[in-house]
């Protein structure tokens, strides 16, 4: 059976239509972000921003920069802490086979299943007592719980694939475990470090529940709360809301463009083993 080139192109057309349908809400978000206030409630709605305006984006620059900065800092902090905790743990679970290792992996699987609202309430109670509500470190710590279990499992899966000979060669050269980890394991694990960092950043950037419970009343509010306040306060300025949403989507877009194969790897890693 040979398929003619024409049949194949027909499939591409169907594929384009399906993708277009799936991504239509994203297009609509971008379209609305450029729509003028007076056209917002036009009937029928304007399908293209022909009389476009940048007012929405001007509002982002005027009002949302502090929120974006907070999200960026929290994202970086989450990435750093997640990798620092999870990479050594993944190495130990994959290569050093400690007693109790499988039980720990099991706990990490379970940990991913805990609903965010429960963690948020527990954190709120603890942070209130410690007085670290509405602080950057507090939010970073809470956000790492979104990523650490996933990160350890990814590192374990990846580092299991490092050939033992490579590690033994380092030991023969007189390197201790710590040195082996630092100068052999970490450099060859670059791909998994990239994957983990991207997801950790994206998840902390997208987090709403910890932000609204643990940072909702302070000076350090991330962009998810910026949008949320927008929806609550000025219901009329949908171009500003959608412009903020577009800006808040940039990390996801960057991630997809720069690291497409890592994304698929990350999505399936949690679900399909080997």
């Amino acid at each position, binding site marked *: 059976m040979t398929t003619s080139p024409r049949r194949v192109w027909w499939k591409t057309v169907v594929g384009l239509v399906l993708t277009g349908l799936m991504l239509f809400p994203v297009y609509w978000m971008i379209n609305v972000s450029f729509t003028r206030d007076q056209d917002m409630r036009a009937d029928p709605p304007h399908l293209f921003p022909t009389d476009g305006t940048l007012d929405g984006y001007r509002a982002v620059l005027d009002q949302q920069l502090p929120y974006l900065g907070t999200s960026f800092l929290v994202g970086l902090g989450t990435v750093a802490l997640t990798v620092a905790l999870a990479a050594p743990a993944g190495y130990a679970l994959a290569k050093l*086979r400690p007693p109790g290792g499988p039980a720990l992996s099991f706990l990490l699987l379970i940990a991913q299943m805990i609903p965010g609202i429960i963690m948020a309430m527990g954190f709120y109670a603890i942070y209130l007592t410690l007085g670290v509500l509405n602080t950057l470190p507090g939010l970073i710590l809470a956000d790492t719980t979104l990523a650490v279990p996933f990160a350890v499992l990814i590192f374990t899966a990846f580092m299991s694939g490092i050939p033992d000979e490579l590690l033994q060669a380092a030991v023969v050269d007189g390197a201790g475990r710590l040195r082996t980890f630092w100068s052999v394991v970490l450099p060859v694990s670059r791909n998994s470090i990239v994957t983990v960092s991207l997801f950790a950043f994206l998840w902390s950037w997208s987090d709403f529940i910890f932000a609204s419970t643990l940072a909702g009343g302070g000076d350090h509010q991330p962009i998810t709360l910026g949008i949320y306040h927008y929806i609550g306060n000025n219901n009329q300025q949908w171009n500003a809301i959608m412009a903020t949403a577009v800006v808040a989507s940039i990390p996801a877009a960057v991630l997809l463009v720069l690291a497409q194969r890592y994304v698929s790897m990350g999505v399936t890693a949690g679900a399909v083993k080997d």
Partner: protein
Amino acid sequence: MAWGFLAPTVVYLLAFYAYPLYRNVELSLREYTVRSFVQGGAPFAGLDNYRTVLTDPAFWPTLAHTLVFTGASLVFQFTIGMALALFFRQHFPLSGTLRALILVPWLLPLIVSASTWSWLLNSDSGLVNAALGVVGIDPVNWLTSPTWSLTSVIIANVWIGIPFNLVVLYSGLQAIPVEVYEASALDGASGWQRFWSITFPLLRPVSAITLLLGLIYTLKVFDIIWIMTRGGPTGSSATLATWSYRLGFGNMLPEFGPGAAVGNLLIVMALIAGLVYIRSQRRQYQR
């Protein structure tokens, strides 16, 4: 030595998983007021909070919404995800790029998706009602009528969940050897027969895992519903997750005890699903 590398993570899990969970259980077993929440000394109340929650008139409707939301989301996400995975398995020009683009809804921050859908479904100016108007259907109050609010949040959640189902099922399809299909093509099986007699049975383990993970994720969903409808109007789209949040943080006078109790009921449901998931994965390993 190995535990030296693991120690930070173990300490971390104890401090930032086990302890918040413990605090949550403790919250649900005491009678907290705002004052005792801050200063401590709340009296032990046994299972009173759970009794309060279970006898609340909102309990059964909320549980029903949770089950409908989860069930409907899973059915549609899985079916559409499977159809797309089967379609994208036939390689054609651009198939890889388009498959990657479909991931976008899954990667967007939930608040972005939720606010975009809120505007699409807006009663007066939303595009959905405008499109319905073109074919002569009266506008629907998607987010503001109790009849439609649950449907609206399900639509948004299905949209977000399709990419995950597509990617996982697609990777499962890749694992089916081509020879199996070649043999059946010789036997003259049609496309539909091939799906039901080969693809679907061979994909059963991956399908089970996809559905179970979907179940665990969907039970947790909070952001979408809270941002689009806040569980309203009049609780018509409230699930256990949003109800727990409303009790703890949504009102002027927080009710942490009952809120934590609802949260703990939710965690029991998620853990049951989780244990089923882990068991089914173990079985798959052993085979």
